[in-house]
């Protein structure tokens, strides 16, 4: 087997891997960032492409089981009401993400302490704030300062237009006296494009990292991490585009392969010393999977509201029901997000499913009865850790390199179900006030497992967790996890901003301690 060598190896070139690749690139070291997926031309994944509505069901389909590219791995969702979405390429899931970009609340870092549910983090909002700010600067976050739901956030770029539907729903929030605020977005306002310009981590971090000397290795899937007798990671076995197996020796390894991909690699790296998966003496690897159960409530209006235009993710949101309140029958809470309604092609397929459209004379009547006249709301529920929600290797379904896929075992907790019911009730109330002529609601929505959290949790010791507060594996000192696998709780907001802030924080620690960290290898 051909051998190569690097000082630092980052596995995964998505949201978390890219941020650390850039941060560490200032060290004078050899750094390789490896990804199982290809490097895709920017022109192909732009949200402003004319064919975006089509490509999101083809090349940029959010479901890896439908894409079935060589770079994907099978995910068996049979035992879960929510299925996993991701993208496997350089840039990771940011190639398809919507770019809604909120931070966690301070309370999200200590849910056990203040609400007696879930797990506490080993650092708090204040510790992370510096990295949130740095990340906002790198990514270019738009929004409006002064949101009462958060500590003050400065240096935001001008907020995106909330549109006609945003304006209507904001008025309804005001009538009900509920909190709302224009969305934070990793999207730049643009006069040319109504959706704004949404960069991916390729533009915000990776290109800069490459300029500083980082080597990106696309089409290279890590199959196993190897360790020495004294339990030090020595490197990885990976398979390249030609399906040749290589050994890449590394002094320090950072796992950034997502809340599903990271535990998958660790599980597949089991050996004599770690028969239940690498770095898994605690038995916590793969457990506590959290997914943010999502409720969907759609109001149908008589008037055309142009709701099909605007940011891909969310134009305004509410944290009225975010924090625990004694009078409610559940703990913690949720975000209400105002989404964009579907474009003409997606509207057609949706109507077709319900036999509400036909080609022929009535085609445009049928289409325009729906297109631009609906307001969709999403309810993003905070999920809490539970050891019975876990992932495991699926040896029956393998990827193009023969590496086992993943099986998801997940149930909604009673707390989540009550939260979802509460959210649906209140969103209906909101849409009624706004004047909807009919309302449709359901949840949890199947294809919404896009926030993958908790499967290699952070904790105080090697008996209760996989990593310490710096993402360092308790069992293997030169192995770090820098993605959302390590989050002990999920929050009730989208996670990418926090994923990247945490990645920057851990890589800062590595920068300061690199010599000491690799000295242990000898």
């Amino acid at each position, binding site marked *: 087997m051909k051998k190569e060598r690097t000082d630092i190896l980052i596995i995964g070139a998505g949201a978390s891997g890219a941020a650390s690749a850039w941060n560490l690139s200032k060290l004078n070291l050899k750094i390789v960032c490896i990804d199982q997926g290809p490097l895709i031309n920017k022109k192909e994944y732009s949200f402003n492409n004319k064919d975006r509505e089509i490509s999101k069901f083809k090349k940029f389909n959010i479901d890896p089981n439908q894409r079935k590219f060589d770079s994907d791995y099978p995910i068996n969702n049979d035992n879960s009401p929510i299925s996993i979405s991701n993208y496997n390429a350089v840039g990771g899931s940011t190639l398809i993400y919507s770019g809604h970009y909120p931070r966690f609340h301070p309370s999200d870092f200590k849910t056990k302490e203040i609400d007696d549910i879930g797990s506490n983090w080993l650092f708090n909002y204040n510790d992370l704030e510096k990295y949130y700010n740095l990340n906002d600067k790198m990514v270019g976050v738009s929004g409006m300062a002064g949101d009462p739901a958060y500590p003050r956030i400065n240096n935001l770029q001008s907020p995106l237009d909330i549109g006609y539907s945003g304006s209507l729903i904001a008025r309804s929030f005001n009538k009900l006296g509920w909190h709302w605020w224009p969305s934070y977005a990793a999207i730049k306002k643009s006069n040319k494009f109504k959706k704004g310009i949404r960069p991916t981590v390729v533009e915000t971090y990776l290109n800069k990292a490459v300029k500083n000397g980082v080597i990106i290795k696309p089409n290279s899937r890590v199959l196993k991490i190897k360790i020495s007798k004294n339990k030090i990671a020595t490197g990885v076995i990976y398979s390249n585009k030609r399906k040749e197996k290589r050994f890449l020796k590394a002094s320090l390894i950072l796992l950034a392969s997502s809340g599903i991909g990271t535990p998958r690699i660790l599980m597949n790296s089991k050996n004599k010393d770690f028969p239940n998966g690498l770095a898994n003496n605690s038995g916590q690897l793969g457990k506590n999977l959290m997914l943010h159960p999502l409720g969907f409530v759609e109001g149908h209006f008589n008037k055309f509201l142009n709701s099909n235009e605007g940011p891909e993710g969310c134009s305004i949101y509410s944290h009225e029901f975010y924090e625990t309140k004694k009078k409610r029958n559940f703990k913690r809470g949720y975000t209400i997000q105002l989404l964009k309604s579907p474009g003409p092609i997606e509207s057609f397929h949706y109507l077709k499913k319900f036999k509400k459209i036909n*080609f022929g004379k009535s085609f445009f009547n049928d289409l325009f009865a729906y297109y631009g006249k609906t307001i969709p709301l999403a309810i993003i529920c905070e999920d809490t850790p539970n050891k019975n929600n876990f992932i495991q290797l699926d040896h029956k379904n393998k990827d193009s390199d023969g590496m086992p896929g993943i099986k998801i075992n997940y149930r909604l907790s009673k707390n989540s179900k009550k939260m979802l019911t509460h959210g649906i009730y209140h969103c209906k109330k909101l849409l009624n006030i706004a004047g909807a002529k009919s309302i449709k609601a359901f949840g949890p929505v199947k294809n919404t497992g896009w926030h993958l959290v908790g499967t290699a949790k952070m904790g105080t010791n090697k008996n209760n967790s996989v990593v310490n507060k710096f993402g360092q594996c308790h069992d293997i000192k030169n192995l770090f996890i820098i993605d959302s696998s390590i989050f002990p709780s999920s929050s009730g907001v989208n996670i990418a901003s926090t994923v990247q802030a945490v990645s920057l924080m851990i890589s800062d620690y590595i920068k300061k301690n690199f010599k000491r960290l690799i000295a242990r290898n000898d």
Partner: protein
Amino acid sequence: MTDSKKRYIFKNNLKNILNNMIPGDEFMPCFSHAVKIETIIKKYLKNKLLLNLKKKKIKIFKKKDIEIYQKLLGNDILDTYFTSNSVINSLNLRKKYYLKDIKKENVFKLLKKAKHKKQFFRE
């Protein structure tokens, strides 16, 4: 019949079918006004299920006829139509027309009327 004659008949039949499927309205163009049939004909010419379109001029009378051809032509037709520049422009014109009378308040004004003024997150 010569190949060019067959092609001619095929093209006219295809145009007729597509314009019956997407006939246009006060804002939206019919299919052949948005997409040049010539640019898509190649894709369908060799489709064995559409062989009869080369033989003689067909007539479309019923909804059922449209459904049959819709299945044969597939959803790509819709993708081609809605990504054409002319349809994108028509949708924009339509949008402007229907938004004329709709109120859109300034976001700052709306926020002034919001209930929560003081920070309410938990430390």
